């Protein structure tokens, strides 16, 4: 237990958790005022999952990258568990809302978007470091939620706007799965790149 709490503190989880939970709570409170429906729409789900993914993406590395690569610990296992538990935590957080008036539904879409966006974030963290891991998920989400994007028969649109396709769209599911698996494998095997410690601050 002591290890877990120290590990999470070193990864600045409290701030990330506050932002992720705050985004869900804000949407949950505001949704009934802006819409007649009880189900939060796919665009909003994508945005909330994006904020959770980028906030938790900053926890993918610690204050000093070289400490995260020391040979004395089995880092690949830790990294994989960290990422998988993060995904479970986000889905669980959104699942809680399904017993209330404003729901994040359907579950398929929530799982697909969480897995895909977290995978993309992990991929970004592996390539550019945790501090820049938000660029790819943010850009793709912004493109996908543009007003002229939507559910479509075209493969181009199904991949470009995979976040807002209805549940069961094969191309979108495949796209999310590829991102999730690639992100998980890359982050597990390699971890974040080594950066000088000065670039990372304890309080970011």
């Amino acid at each position, binding site marked *: 237990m002591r290890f877990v709490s120290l590990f999470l503190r070193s990864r600045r989880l409290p701030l*990330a958790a506050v932002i992720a939970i705050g985004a869900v709570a804000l949407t949950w409170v505001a949704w009934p005022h802006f819409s007649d429906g009880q189900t939060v729409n796919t665009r909003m789900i994508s*945005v909330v999952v994006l904020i959770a993914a980028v906030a938790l993406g900053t926890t993918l590395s610690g204050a000093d990258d070289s400490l995260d690569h020391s040979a004395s610990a089995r880092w690949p296992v830790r990294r994989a568990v960290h990422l998988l538990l993060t995904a479970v935590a986000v889905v669980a957080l959104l699942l809680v809302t399904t017993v209330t008036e404003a729901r994040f539904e359907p579950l398929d879409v929530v799982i697909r978007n969480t897995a895909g966006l977290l995978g993309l974030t992990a991929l970004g963290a592996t390539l550019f470091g945790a501090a820049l891991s938000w*660029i790819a998920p943010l850009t793709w989400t*912004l493109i996908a939620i543009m007003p002229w994007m939507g559910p479509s028969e075209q493969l181009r649109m199904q991949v470009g706007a995979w976040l807002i396709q209805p549940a069961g769209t094969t191309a979108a599911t495949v796209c999310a799965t590829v991102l999730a698996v690639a992100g998980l494998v890359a982050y597990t095997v390699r971890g974040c790149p080594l950066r000088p410690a*000065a670039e990372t601050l304890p309080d*970011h």
Partner: protein
Amino acid sequence: MKTEVRRSAVPGIAMLLLVVGAVFTLTSTEFFAGRWTQLALYSRGSLLLLIPLALAGGAWLGRRDRRSRVGELFATTVRPRWQRTLPLTVGYAAIMVVVYLLATAVGAIWVAPTAAYLSPTVLGITAVGALGMVAASWLGMAAGRAVPRIVTAPVLAVVGFAVVALLPDFVSMSGYDANFVKARPDPSALLLTPAFPGGFDDLQTLPTSVSALQAVWLAALAGTALLLIGAARRSVLAVAVLPAVIGAAVAVPLLPTGGYYGAAVVDPTAAELVCDDDGPPVCVRKVHAALLPDIVGPVREVLALAAAKLPNPPVRAEETARLDAYAAPDQPAVRHDADTLVFDWPGFTSSGKPDLGDGYFRTELLASVWSQECQNGGSATGQVAFAADYAPFQPEAVATAWLTGGPPQPQDWWRPQDQQKIEAAHQALTALPTDEQRQLVGQARAAALDCDYDRFEALLMAGDR
């Protein structure tokens, strides 16, 4: 400034935005091909993507001092903060303007070869878009300075998207009552956002006076952001919001109500007629004039058909001046004479040529032989005006089949009983002596152009009873 820009995150941010902006321009070239005004407006739509990204980039740059932990060190120096921050601030904004202009310039490849008319309003529309990028860059940097966290950048981008994309939509939708009739016009404050994802009719433009007011507001907003970035003393930070408030206070009362569509005006030069008199005159609006040679052929073909078979046939053809209903809901109907064929522009392909494929334009031309502007469109009455009111489709199909000399061309949306009625009426019509046929269709056309659709139907569909 060069060093600051080169040795910071600016090149990376600029590359990302340039790729996103250029891909956005290339995805739908048919929306602006051949028309400068439409290209400028389309770029204003791309701001929906570029503004959130410029905000995020600014936030990333704004937390640079904190990331390098040099705040205390710099606070001990004599050099004022604004002097130190100015090079990066100005450099980043300048690069963002260049990115916006380059992304627009990519579209020019599809516009320049087939454009006939460059409206002076294009300058204002583009300048406001560039100013929007400046304001977004600086607001992002100010936010990065205020909250120097990693998540500031992505969260700010999402908030920025909500403000420029979702908020105007929400305000506009709340103006409708329970029956989806516009109960309250859009407030003029909707023009405060430079991002406009809709589009105008080809004949419309955004007047320079509106662009000037938007520029005043955006410059004031940029001034506020600049104060927030550069000021060191709390007293200055406290009054930093004043420029934006004053800018909004000046612009909002002077801007027209109705949002972007309320501000749009018909560009009289774009709407001028340009004619090909080498045969029966065929005229299009000046904005489409470069493509006149492409459509003269199909139009003359229909004119020749009409001249051969109809009494009192149309002898000239001109493109309609009626605007698309979505862009201008309030339009009076303007009747035209029987000697003129008024047709709709066929639309553009993605390469900038008129869309003549699948014979769709010919079908439209044949339909416009019997069409007239009959109903005034108006949001007040809840009626939507279409570019031309078309006659009822059953008698129209009979008349068109008679004119082209073939059997009626079934459309996939016809029901089986429609098809039976139309074929029966067509057979009854062609069974009459030739002179009588000609006289009857001539009377029917006169009725249709008088907007007497009951008589049009009675004359042509008599045979199926």
